[in-house]
């Protein structure tokens, strides 16, 4: 039971708004010591795992290109394009993006879009511009930007599991094999389809409701 101290540290640390990197490190320390690991072994285990998971940090290599494009007016152009389209709304824009993200992720193309590559330079500025056009308000609509980021996540999560060679499918296959149950990846991926449809319907409905709230705010 003592090893659960680490979970308590995490929850308390986040609630008290300490620096999350510090919280994670203290949690690892509490957990490891409770399980009887020595400080040096613990440091080595943490360092090894940190090195093994470097691939998540690689994505920031796209930032110089995104920054350069922004310097030369990409966001302004994205807003201008939306402002020129009549009848274009946040909800419809993000609904289209949701479909695009789910379909490409289901084909295994998870890196084609994402927060640094597409949401920051294109989708979020377009969503904000569409919202400003809908409500006639000048100020930034941060809620629309947050919704753009949320739509990317929903599309990715509930699209990618339809693709058979994705990490989570391989993990499930491995875990089940450990219990003597052998399943082809294809049989796991087909069962992701009902949830994918439900995710599209639920999030899509919310996007259209988002539009209606914008409409009510319009003068």
């Amino acid at each position, binding site marked *: 039971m003592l*090893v*659960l101290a*680490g979970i308590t540290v*995490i*929850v308390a640390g986040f609630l008290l708004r300490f*620096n*999350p*990197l510090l919280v*994670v490190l203290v949690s*690892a320390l509490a957990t490891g010591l409770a*399980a009887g690991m020595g400080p040096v072994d613990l*440091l*080595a*285990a*943490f*360092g090894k*795992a*940190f*090195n093994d998971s*470097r*691939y998540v*940090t*690689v994505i*920031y*290599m796209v930032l*110089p*290109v995104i*920054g*350069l*494009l*922004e*310097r030369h*007016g990409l966001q*302004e*152009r994205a807003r201008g394009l939306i402002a020129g389209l009549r009848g274009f709304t946040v909800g419809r824009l993000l609904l289209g993006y949701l479909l695009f993200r789910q379909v490409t992720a289901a084909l295994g193309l998870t*890196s*084609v879009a994402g927060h640094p*590559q597409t949401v920051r330079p*294109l989708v*979020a500025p377009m969503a904000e511009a569409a919202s400003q056009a809908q409500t006639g308000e000048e100020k930034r609509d*941060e*809620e629309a930007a*947050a*919704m753009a*980021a*949320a739509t990317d*996540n*929903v599309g990715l999560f*509930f699209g990618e*599991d339809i693709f058979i060679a994705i990490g*989570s499918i391989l*993990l499930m296959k491995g875990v089940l094999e450990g219990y003597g*149950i052998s399943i082809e990846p294809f049989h*796991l991926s087909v*069962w*992701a389809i*009902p*949830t994918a449809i*439900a995710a599209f319907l*639920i999030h899509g409905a919310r996007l259209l409701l988002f539009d209606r709230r914008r409409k009510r705010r319009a003068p």
Partner: protein
Amino acid sequence: MIGLNLVYPFAGLVFLAFAWSALRDRSNAKRIGNALFYALIALSLIAGDRLGDIGNGLLVLGLVAIAGLGRMGRGSGGTTSAEQRGAEAGRRGNRLFLMALLIPLTALAGTYVFKQMPTLIDGRQATLVALATGVILALLVGYAWFRPRWLAPFDEGRRLMDGVGWAAVLPQMLASLGAVFALAGVGDVVGGLMERMIPEGSLVGAVLAYGIGMALFTIVMGNAFAAFPVMAAAIGIPLLIHGAGGDPAVIAAIGMLAGFCGTLMTPMAANFNLVPAALLDLKDRHAVIRAQIPTALPLLAVNIALLWWLGFRA
């Protein structure tokens, strides 16, 4: 063979340029902290495999010390004015989108093409290699088209990176915490607790505990991958598959998706929830989570219902 062995050092060089740019950024009072932080990430990406486990551990301590002591700030310098950008947008027109699409299109084409070249490119890493190729191509086009100062793309990239700040390594930290949890047997303890909460012989209770447990444990760990082996061992395999004769493919696949609903609701899934809020300059760093909860909760209910309907058809 081209794989992570070249992608990591390339990303490392980008971070090295961020460090250099941060050091020269006089608009940031804490520029030395930022520069050191990016330099340590560069070191990890370029030489991580040669540092040894303890060396990597010390590197992490350095990163945490810089962030934990509040030594990181945000620079403003570097970018063009709103008027200049507006003028450029008018002049460059929709060709700007073409260049923005160069990275995704190269990632798309490269993923397919590189898989046909197994001797040259590591097939498992084809996507990341393609993404890096897209970045290099886009940079070359950018230099030729905009004719910026040599460091301008990296100054601009560093401006965006400053917005993300220490959150950039939080996902890697959490993955490492997951590894420590696994070594310490946290999963087994949590699984044991879950098991004791289910009423004896109740299939509905077991399905509910499995679905909600996947989401809750994912909220704590920030990652459904960490929750799945635990919940499968505690409830999925013994109670739902062996005990009640559930279809293993359904129990596994939809159980994992119930976990993904948890991912939408937690700051622990930093790269999906906190980093985008920082990247988009949102005042509320939990704004993305707030936007996701009304999707995540009904979808979790749907997943639990699907487990119940589809898992026990026979």
